[in-house]
């Protein structure tokens, strides 16, 4: 598309009015990928809601879904930056496994005294993860060894160390409850429960499970705060843009987006509140997702990563220290792999040699389903998160349906291929 013939734009009021419908259309088309992905996730969830005869959205299953997939999403945040910067990391599953083993050894086997406190161990593990990322990133960034090769080596090395640490095929556990809370815990209900419908008591004087309706109010309050904050920031950003005379996206579109988003969020919050409250790991995930959205959208370092992935030579000639930036991307990936490893170990309650085995493929698939480009420079945090949930919901839904694990893989493979073909097709059409 050549624009040589387009008139030199002046920001006169008349033209702004003329441009309005065009902006509406372009706002829709540019965000189509993101909206489409979210719609796809919703469609998949609705599909499984029917095929599992209502099990998918049951509060207990939603909690399970989050707890089973959180490590994928946490690692996908790091993988997104790796892929945007034009690299790949195949070692994340092995690093997660190794860190889980390391954490278990420190907490259960090695006589470390006060150092075996779960919090101290977790911090040490995150630092070790960062160091692993730095070690791999060093060769990739400063010696230009392809990341595929370096991290393939890392994948073998850390799986090997993981198994050696655990002494062959055995598992190490049980892990302390304080540590397990990272995955299987729920946030403490400081406000207290609110019983809307008292539970039914059976003849023996015991409550019938699943009867009655009690809401965890802390979860409800947190959910409301989050939704209000979301709406407030959306509105204030709009106001600021308008005050400076810039066109924001059309107001009806904004309202619909905010309402639909809030309604979905509140529905999920309600479901969690009626079970045991917000899972701790969901809170961790939520904080990390917000942080990474902010870093990629608003911070200079995020901008530099995208620029480097889009054209490394141009970025370098613009004064960006691409080597150091690449190193930092891999350090970040290492830390998040370590966190993923801790989450896996906490959920299983023990370290097993196969922890995280093959999860690098799920993580990479999540990022690509989320619209990232294998060439680098393109990809969104929200996309990767939604991509991760699509994978998770499919795993969960098909398992409930009783689909054979072998066929689950086939379906996931087809979804990944379909998503990327859809992207490429769209790009060529544009």
């Amino acid at each position: 598309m050549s624009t040589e013939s387009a008139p030199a734009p002046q920001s006169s009021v008349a033209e702004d009015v003329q441009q309005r419908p065009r902006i509406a259309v372009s706002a829709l088309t540019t965000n189509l990928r993101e909206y489409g992905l979210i719609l796809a996730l919703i469609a998949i969830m609705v599909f499984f809601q029917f095929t599992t005869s209502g099990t998918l959205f049951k509060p207990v299953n939603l909690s399970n879904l989050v707890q089973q997939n959180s490590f994928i999403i946490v690692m996908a945040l790091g993988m997104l930056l790796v892929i945007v910067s034009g690299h790949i990391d195949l070692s994340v599953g092995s690093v997660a496994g190794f860190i889980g083993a390391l954490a278990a050894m420190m907490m259960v086997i090695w006589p470390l005294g006060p150092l075996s406190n779960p919090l101290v161990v977790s911090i040490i593990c995150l630092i070790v993860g960062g160091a692993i990322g730095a070690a791999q990133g060093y060769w990739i960034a400063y010696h230009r060894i392809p990341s595929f090769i370096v991290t393939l080596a890392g994948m073998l090395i850390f799986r090997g160390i993981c198994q050696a640490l655990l002494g062959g095929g055995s598992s190490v556990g049980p892990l302390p409850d304080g540590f397990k809370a990272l995955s299987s815990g729920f946030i403490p209900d400081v406000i207290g429960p609110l019983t809307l419908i008292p539970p039914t008591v059976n003849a023996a004087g015991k409550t019938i499970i699943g009867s009655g309706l009690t809401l965890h109010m802390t979860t409800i309050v947190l959910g409301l705060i989050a939704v209000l904050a979301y709406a407030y920031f959306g509105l204030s950003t709009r106001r600021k843009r308008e005050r400076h005379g810039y066109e924001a996206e059309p107001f009806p579109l904004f309202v619909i987006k905010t309402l639909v988003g809030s309604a979905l969020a509140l529905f999920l919050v309600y479901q969690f509140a009626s079970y045991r409250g917000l899972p701790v790991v969901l809170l961790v995930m939520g904080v990390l997702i917000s942080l990474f959205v902010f870093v990629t959208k608003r911070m200079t370092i995020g901008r530099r990563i995208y620029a480097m992935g889009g054209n490394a030579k141009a970025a370098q000639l613009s004064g960006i220290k691409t080597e150091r930036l690449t190193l930092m991307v891999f350090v970040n990936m290492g830390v998040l792999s370590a966190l993923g490893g801790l989450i896996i170990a906490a959920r299983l309650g023990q370290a097993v040699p196969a922890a995280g085995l093959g999860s690098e493929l799920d993580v990479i698939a999540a990022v690509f389903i989320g619209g990232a480009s294998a060439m680098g420079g393109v990809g969104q945090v929200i996309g990767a998160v939604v991509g991760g949930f699509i994978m998770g919901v499919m795993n969960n839904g098909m398992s409930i349906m009783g689909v054979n694990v072998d066929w689950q893989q086939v379906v996931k493979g087809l979804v990944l291929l379909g998503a990327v073909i859809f992207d490429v097709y769209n790009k060529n059409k544009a």
Partner: protein
Amino acid sequence: MVSTILEMRDITKTFPGVKALSNVNLSVEEGEIHAVVGENGAGKSTLMKVLSGVYPTGTYDGQIIFNAQECHFKGIHDSEHKGIVIIHQELALVPMLSIAENIFLGNEHARYGVIDWNANEARTSALLKKVGLKEDPKTLITNIGVGKQQLVEIAKALSKEVKLLILDEPTASLSEKDSQALLDLLLEFKRQGMTSILISHKLNEVNRVADKVTVIRDGRTIETLAKKDISEDRIITSMVGRSLDDRYPPREPDIGEVVFEVKNWSVYHPLHAERQVIKGIDINVRKGEVVGIAGLMGAGRTEFAMSLFGRSYGRHITGEVLLKGKPIDVSSVSRAVEHGIAYVTEDRKTFGLNLIDHIKHNITLANLGGVSRHGVIDDLGELSVANDYRGKTNIRASSVYQMTGNLSGGNQQKVVLSKWLFADPEVLILDEPTRGIDVGAKYEIYTIIARLAAEGKAIVVISSEMPELLGITDRIYVMNEGRIVGEMPAVDASQEKIMRAIVRGEGKAA
């Protein structure tokens, strides 16, 4: 008895918006070495691409008559089949394959797809002997120098039963010694009866080997000189005989003290450690001055500029850079930028832009600190900066959210320029700032350059278009083979003078 082997009649070739060749005629006789000379962009390479079928029949007008037959080549395969072989300026060898594998690439002695290596290597040995290259056919291309690689290219041409050999700037990247050897080889081929076309702008070489010279300028044949009429002066006049008109905005230079100085700058090739690319260059630029660096392709101008800008090219870099009399550290791009130096690349797509991102993000990339606080980007501040520079440089786009990959060349150039203007440099090095953009956009770029100079910036313009340099600069350095071979005020300069400095400087560089 001489007969005409090739005749190209009234060749006209147009690209969208540009007439690259108009009614070019070329007539080559059997057994001669025919030189085709002209400035960069005059149309020499386009003409050869028409001849070899790179631009297939139907995409140009005119006739090609080879060996008394009218030819309609649909591709390079057709022309090679007739015995016309072209050796391009950029060598087309596969570095990690052996000499023998390269020579017979796509043309292997094979039966049912199984390669007969003995036959290949025996034939390769014979061919290497012909071109005087003493190397094992199994040697990898990457392990031999550029001069020998050129000989391999020629051997490859000979393997195809060549009747007409076309060499496009064969000595551009060769040392003096290798160049001499290559020219001797051409003369030897001529004694054996082969016809060749030599494209070159090294007039001393043309003088030495050519039997006839055809001069091309602005896509037209100017004249064909016979052996007895060939002289450097005659060729130069013929090459540059073009008048300057008002394609350049008027300017009142207000020149101050020296701002930027480079002393004894030397750089070695990044891969061939023994090859010195930049050989002790001294230049200076004053406040408000526009200084041009003239020279032909391969003179080392881009290499010089990029090595200055954060050592982005070459290694073993030595020399001194001074800003307002004080030595500064330019060993990384970010340091160079901090000191107020900006380099606008000649290759905007490869080195200048993130083509998959929009205008706004590209403009602020070199100075993100200017739109952020504590690492957090001020969205609206960035937007107003982008809109501001879009207006200043007159970037034509639907909004600053347009992908730079979708812009025309001229607008892309303005985005790159905006990026560096926003970095607010004191010294601006512009490398081929108007390459591949249309006349209107050129004028806009010249206007921006004039405005920057008026604001007191020190500006260096590297350009292969001599009229452009004469039109917009105050002083011109002439560069050739990694050296400054001339310096002249723009008012005293002429294309002839520049060309003279280049061709006279040729011998000194050995």
